[in-house]
């Protein structure tokens, strides 16, 4: 504890750059003349580490710990209260032979594709449109972003009412133009469409904001050059905007993959279970996503080991898909 008086002031001077003229020095250049002190030990930065420690402590206790505990659980049979029993790879063997698990994977992938593709494409189109808008910019941005900050439960309940088979708004409108009611919430495919639509509605605005930020970083001169060369708006979009935006698109694809595969609340709220029928995911389990199946196994059937096995198998799947996505989006870059 004797070191601070010595190193303290030096550290301050180095970080802030001295008062006055130092401010005009280019960043990242060590102050001229000031002899760089000997590399100091990690411990001398204890204040900084202490300042950022709350996040890491909470992360370790509430995220990191449980993640590895769940890996341990995947090799046990455990009902939540009794003794754990080591079962080796048995849970994974069950998983491999469980048709409901594979059904849930199929459901998740279909819902993911049905939601991610329109979300990202729509977000890009909206961002381009919004980028060229001159008036009410703020209004449009807020209006498109609001769905993302709306409570997912409220949105799901609202969608459930709007798409209700017999008395929903959508079927009422279809009925007015003479179309027979569509079984939105019982047909296996339409269930997925409704869930995907809900996710699209929630996430388009979020991705749009990210794309908009990317668009604003593209210098206007590039577009002017393209215009002089005679490129139309569509050609400019595909030949200029998209290539420059590639890193941003990559980011949104990865994030959407991770988010989209983890759909849980949407089907859970749309198709609530009850005491008599504790199956989740609606009629025919068509909306049973993998995370929902995990929840059912662990928390409704009290089979925590199996639940842990489901999420770890799913983790592997997400990694594989993220890598594939990465490769696809990166592909054009090498040429």
């Amino acid at each position, binding site marked *: 504890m004797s070191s601070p008086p010595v190193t303290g002031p030096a550290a301050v001077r180095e970080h802030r750059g001295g008062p006055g003229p130092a401010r005009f020095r280019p960043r990242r250049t060590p102050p001229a003349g000031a002899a760089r002190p000997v590399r100091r030990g990690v411990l001398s930065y204890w204040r900084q580490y202490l300042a950022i420690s709350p996040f890491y402590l909470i992360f370790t206790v509430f995220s990191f710990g449980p993640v590895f505990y769940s890996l341990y659980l995947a090799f046990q049979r455990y009902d939540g209260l009794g003794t754990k029993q080591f079962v080796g790879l048995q849970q994974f063997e069950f998983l491999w032979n469980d048709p409901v698990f594979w059904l849930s994977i199929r459901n998740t992938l279909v819902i993911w594709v049905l939601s991610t593709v329109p979300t990202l494409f729509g977000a890009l189109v909206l961002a381009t449109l919004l980028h060229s808008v001159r008036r009410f910019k703020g209004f449009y941005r807020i209006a498109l972003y609001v769905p993302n900050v709306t409570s997912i439960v409220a949105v799901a309940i609202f969608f459930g009412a709007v798409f209700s088979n*017999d008395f929903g708004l959508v079927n009422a409108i279809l009925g007015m133009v003479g179309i027979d009611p569509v079984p939105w919430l019982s047909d296996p495919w339409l269930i997925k469409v409704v869930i995907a639509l809900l996710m699209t509605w929630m996430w388009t605005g979020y991705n749009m904001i990210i794309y908009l930020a990317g668009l604003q970083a593209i210098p206007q001169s590039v577009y002017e050059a393209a215009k002089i060369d005679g490129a139309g708006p569509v050609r400019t979009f595909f030949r200029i905007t998209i290539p420059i935006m590639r890193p941003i698109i990559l980011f949104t694809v990865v994030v959407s993959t991770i988010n989209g595969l983890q759909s849980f609340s949407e089907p859970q709220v749309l198709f609530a279970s009850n005491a008599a029928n504790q199956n989740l995911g609606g009629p025919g389990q068509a909306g049973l996503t993998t995370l929902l199946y995990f929840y059912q196994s662990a928390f409704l059937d*009290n089979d925590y080991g199996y639940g842990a096995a489901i999420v770890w198998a799913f983790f592997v799947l997400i990694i594989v898909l993220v890598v594939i996505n990465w490769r696809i989006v990166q592909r054009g870059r090498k040429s």
Partner: protein
Amino acid sequence: MDLSRRGFLQAAVFTAAASGLTVACGGGSESGGTKNGKNLTMWYWGGALSDKVVAEAKTHFTSRIKLTSASIGGDFKQKLTTTLAAGGSSVPDITGIKGEDIASFLPNADRFLDLNDLGFKKVSSQYLEWKTKLAQTKDGKQIGFPIDIGPTALFYRADLFDKAGLPDDPAKVAAEAKTWDDYFALGTELKKALPGTFLVNNMGSVFNIAVGQGTKRFIDEDNHFIGDQDHIRAAWNTAIRAYRLGLDAKINDQSWNSAVGKSLTTELGAAWHALDIESAAPDTKGKWRVCATPGGPANQGGSYLTLPKQCRNPEEAFKIISWILSPDNNAKSFTDAAIFPASPASYAMLAMTGPDAFFGGQKIIEVFGPAAEAIPVSYEAPADSAVMAPFMAELTSIEAKGKKPDDAWKDAVSQAKQIARRQGVS
């Protein structure tokens, strides 16, 4: 007030310290108590007990015990499991457990006190045997004190029966719908007379009750899977018959709320289901009647109070729960919160024998009372509801996707077997 950074930090530190201190003190004073603690906590969920009776219990025992009750929202079972697994002083002294969850707590009966040691044996004859047995381990340890039950009945629209030219008097309808076959025959007539109406809302509700009418379920007492045997197949076939005859409305979502007052002529459900109907279709008031379930009564739901082994004062806690759940107070709970008692003595009390306006002034206890006492004693294994789930899922698959019933049966059995194996059932 202008809040400086220093001021803000100071405030934050003080708040954190204060809350830490509170937690420490709270933990200290409670965990310090031996087995004659004066402060008892009770967990239940909204509607599990009558708040009025709980408030009366607080004043009744106030000289000896300070009872604090907490209405726990959300996933009650999960919160209780987590708290019990964590142990310590946060475990409640008295807690409710839902009827559908009690079986899954029985393998961990050592987490709870045996109520027989505290005097439950002396009062157990006042409560329905089949309900008491469901909260008992194989070696006779009683972990749950029955709060309420859910005896089933047939709810029907007397006005629509009348319109179809059928008898609408409860006794006559009960006689006409004595078995499932009779009931479906009645439904076929109703459908002919009133096109566009349905007898049952979905196959799951028929299957659920048909299984509950028997003494055996999906797993036997020797921990063997018996879900592929005749008793389950018969219940399955009963459900399928409603579907084949076109009596099934195939409702598996919230649209039940709008259908119940319109296209459904009958409803199968427990006593508490009356409230669902009443809130979904308030304008059908007076048009509904109740009679005995076709094929005999079953039970749906109904909870228990238990004493976790950390209970700070078992003697007093047991006195409190037996007071709250005494036949007299059970009758009060029925009046106050429509909690159907597990104590038959309550059925004759004034609070329960009155006419019900929603059912056109019918004295519904005359239907539910005898039903409650006639429910068979059955064995429900810890994994029972998990093993039952694929049967319900396949029934909805038939309704939603038009899956062939025989294929659905095969898939349901193979999935149920797999779940059983996962849960350690042989």
